[in-house]
């Protein structure tokens, strides 16, 4: 038995294709950081005073983490998930107390020149604990209790991150809802979510303008949206009254009433929140994404520069180290969240498409990898990894190409930063380790 286990958990069973994609991302990402952060006074890529030099250290550390992780028994992550979760959550508490404030958020532990961002690690803890909970309870999220427990596991660290405040990182926690969907959470969640996004966008767009209504004069455009919803409700009601058999009518009337009331209330509150609750710069970012007019000049600077930089690449790209926009640092701190714009400028459409394609490939491979797991723990965790990558791809690349608001989260393996690189490496390699020993695990 012991002999058998050793044989089945060998590192040689690691999914090498994923490892190769990982290595490519890390090395290619590093090359692009070098290009984006290039300082001609420090041309050496190993110059540790520069971002690319530091990233090299993070890469070495990440490789060590990856190798070590591959040699830890998968069972460890299952058994100790609560402690890992607890440890990372504790860090989130600590960072609020002793953390260093950078750009208005208390998100960093400062260690000299280097900083650690615990929010990048907490997703691993959440993923492991969520997997453990689902696997051990067999939860299918049919009951309020299971939903609440899962919500607590996700919500506690998310709430701590929101206190920093770091809205971007919190948004990536939406990944876990996708995971829960796979494990049984009603699909209505996705439809509701999609509906909320559509209605939210409509409310913001209509709320940005004002319309001259008869009798009441100039009013926020949101009222027009609510008027349309009301009209839809009336048409629907007329349809039901005339074409549906009477005994089926009653529940439908309730649905219509709920739809009209809920969507009106939702539109109104979205518009209210955007106008009165959100801080000015958040409102501006949303407006910029939706191409709505922004009052303050320069509010759309980052978004505009990112789009120009991407567009500058053309089909074939300007060539490595030759992107005029990248080399002139038009996008501020391009080596962090906006690194994809450097890739797209210097490597062009084919380069950008390759990276997006490889991410999609990696995510689908992880989903398939998750599905082939014998243990539910491994499967759920696998989905967590896939969905976290997906959320980062969705938000980060969307932001660079102007399809999502400016939300500062890193592009996995590409963006400069030790915490994110180490965090994503650990996240991925735990899954690779679990996958490597899947044959030895019996349900």
């Amino acid at each position, binding site marked *: 038995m012991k002999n058998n286990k050793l044989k089945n958990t060998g590192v040689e069973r690691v999914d090498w294709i994923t490892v190769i994609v990982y290595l490519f991302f890390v090395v290619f990402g590093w090359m692009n950081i070098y290009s984006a952060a290039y300082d001609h006074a420090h041309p050496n890529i190993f110059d540790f005073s520069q971002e690319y030099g530091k990233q090299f250290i993070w890469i070495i550390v990440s490789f060590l983490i990856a190798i070590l992780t591959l040699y830890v028994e998968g069972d460890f992550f299952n058994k100790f998930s609560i402690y890992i979760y607890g440890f990372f959550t504790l860090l989130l508490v600590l960072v609020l107390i002793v953390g260093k404030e950078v750009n208005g958020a208390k998100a960093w532990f400062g260690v000299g020149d280097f900083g650690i961002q615990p929010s990048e690690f907490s997703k691993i803890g959440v993923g492991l604990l969520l997997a453990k909970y689902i696997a051990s309870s067999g939860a299918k999220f049919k009951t309020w209790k299971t939903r609440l427990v899962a919500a607590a596991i996700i919500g506690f660290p998310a709430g701590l991150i929101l206190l920093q405040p770091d809205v971007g990182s919190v948004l990536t926690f939406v990944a876990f809802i996708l995971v829960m969907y796979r494990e049984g959470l009603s699909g209505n969640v996705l439809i509701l979510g999609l509906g909320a996004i559509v209605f939210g966008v409509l409310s913001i767009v209509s709320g940005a303008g004002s319309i001259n209504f008869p009798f009441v004069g100039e009013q926020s455009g949101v009222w027009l949206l609510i008027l349309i919803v009301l009209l839809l409700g009336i048409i629907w009601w007329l349809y039901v009254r005339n074409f549906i058999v009477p005994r089926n009518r009653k529940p439908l009337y309730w649905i219509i009433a709920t739809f009209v009331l809920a969507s009106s209330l939702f539109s109104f509150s979205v518009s209210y929140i955007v106008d009165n609750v959100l801080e000015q710069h958040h409102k501006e970012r949303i407006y910029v994404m939706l191409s709505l007019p922004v009052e303050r000049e320069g509010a759309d600077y980052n978004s505009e520069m990112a789009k120009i930089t991407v567009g*500058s690449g053309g089909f074939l790209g300007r060539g490595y180290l030759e992107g005029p926009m990248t080399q002139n640092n038009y996008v501020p701190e391009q080596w962090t969240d906006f690194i994809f714009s450097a890739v*797209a400028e210097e490597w062009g459409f084919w380069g950008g498409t390759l990276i997006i394609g490889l991410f999609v490939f990696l995510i689908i491979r992880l989903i398939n990898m998750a*599905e082939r797991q014998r243990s539910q723990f491994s499967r759920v965790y696998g989905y967590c990894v896939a969905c976290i990558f*997906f959320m980062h*791809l969705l938000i980060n690349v969307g932001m660079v190409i102007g*399809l999502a608001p400016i939300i500062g989260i890193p592009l996995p393996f590409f963006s400069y930063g030790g915490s994110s690189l180490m965090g994503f490496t650990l996240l991925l390699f735990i899954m690779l380790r679990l996958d490597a020993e899947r044959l030895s695990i019996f349900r």
Partner: protein
Amino acid sequence: MNLEGRRFTLILIVSIIGIIYMLRLLSLQVTTDKWQNKASALAEKEVIIYPSRGLIYDRKGRVLVTNQTVYDLMVLPRQVDPFDTSAFCQLVNLSIEELRTLLKKAVTYPNVRYKPSPIIKQITPPEYAAISEQLYKYPGFFGQPRTLRVYPQQIGALMLGDVGEVTKETIEDNPYYRRGDYIGLGGIEKAYEVELRGKRGVKYVFRDNLGIERNVAGGKLDSSAVEGTQLIATIDAELQRYGEKLMQNKRGCIVAIEPSTGEILALVSAPTYDPNLLVGRARGHNFNVLSRDVQKPLFNRATQAQYRPGSIFKLAQSLTALQVGAITPQTRIQCNRAIIGCHGSHSYDDLEMAIVHSCNPYFRGVMQRVVEGDRDKTNRFRDARLGLDIWQNYMKGFGFGTNLGTDIPNVKTGLVPGVAFYDKWYGEYQWAFSTIYSLSIGEGEMQVTPLQMCNLACIIANRGWYVSPHTVRQIGLGGRPRDEYLIRHQLPIDTSYFTNVVNAMEKVVGPGGTGGRAKLKNITVCGKTGTVQNEPREDHAVFICFAPKENPKIALSVYVENAGFGGTWSAPIASLMIEKFLNDSIADPAKEKRILDANFLHQ
């Protein structure tokens, strides 16, 4: 419920997002060049290579206008790093406040955050040498060489013209020009702007990661600068200088033209100024001073002042009358001083003597014959309309009321009143010869410029034709003038009729003539004096002439404002100019001294 199937929902979502993002990349990068263009506008620097402006020489090869390199200190705001402002201010000799204002202007000027804009203009080479040594410490600042005009002869300010920065209106009208470009604003600089400016070159570069400026797209978009064309002007620098000297302390002008070619030998407008005043950083200040000067030095009297023609006009009247057959050279008319005043002792002159005596009743009679003819004695009003039309056409033939086709910018055309003019003034059929007879002696509504009067002298010198007066004889060294200056404009007047007029002009300068002071030994000068009434102030003294009588080499018109009788002041100036041009020496220093000492500025 088949939960395993849900994996495909998730895979589908991921794939759809992937495809949407790729399509978005396609739309940003491939299907439009909107974003590429924006990137070029931002990141690529357009380095303009200014060609040096063409030099201008005089007809004998002396340099009239040359160039001097100066430097504009430019700033590219986005490349500026925090720097030691006090050291910088000391270096460029500015106060910190001034620097702050200039930098702020450079940043806030629309769309220049990404384009270099000048903060200090026209730094002289020695000043710039000191600055450039230190400039490496201040990224974002650099020197842009520019050329300024220099006028080594210090003469011919209005004729040569000046150069200044283009105005916003010019940029809007003419897409060649950009903010900060120089353009010719007057004289030859303006008339030959396209030839002189050359062609601006442009180089597109961006700073690569080694800090080296590299060509965008391998230099395929670049264009090289073409140097401005050199010009040979028609003027004789020494004659021009001499004319300016003779006209010192006077208001007025001298126009000298070579009759056979229409080349302007000198174009003096007095008072004049050193053209170097309107160059460089002092330009703005000096321009204000000159434009406020009561003597109006910026007003080109030779081409823009419009005077009544005075007695000299009798020459054109004579030729017209001979051609239309109103008179013959032998026609005598009584000097009837009851109708119009006259002077001197004569009573019944023929044409030649009437010109010599400038007999007013004679020319009143001449014009009456021209205008009324013998068409219809019953209706003087209709006669006058027909006659004046004929007369006006002849006057236009002499170049009056036209710009003469000259290359000098902003010339005035003067006025030859015709039927339309008097109809408007008096009403149709409300005027007859008796209403307009003062035209006959060069008074009344007619207006001419000194350039036109000199051209009249050329026509008589050539016995019937002229070439449009022009200021450039070679475009490019060894080149030709503009095509229109190779054409002779022939007047519809028989050459034989000029003989009497020329003879009369010779007598004007001869013993007892009104232009006696223009007489020269060994050179036969033909001239005509004139006085332009200028109530209530002193008359303007006018003289036109050409010399020598046969095969004339120079024709002149000389105006001295408020100097009185033309023969007293303008005739000797003309003769000194002829002497200077033909002999290069002055035989009678007393004559010269008398002119140099005269001062009519405060008449």
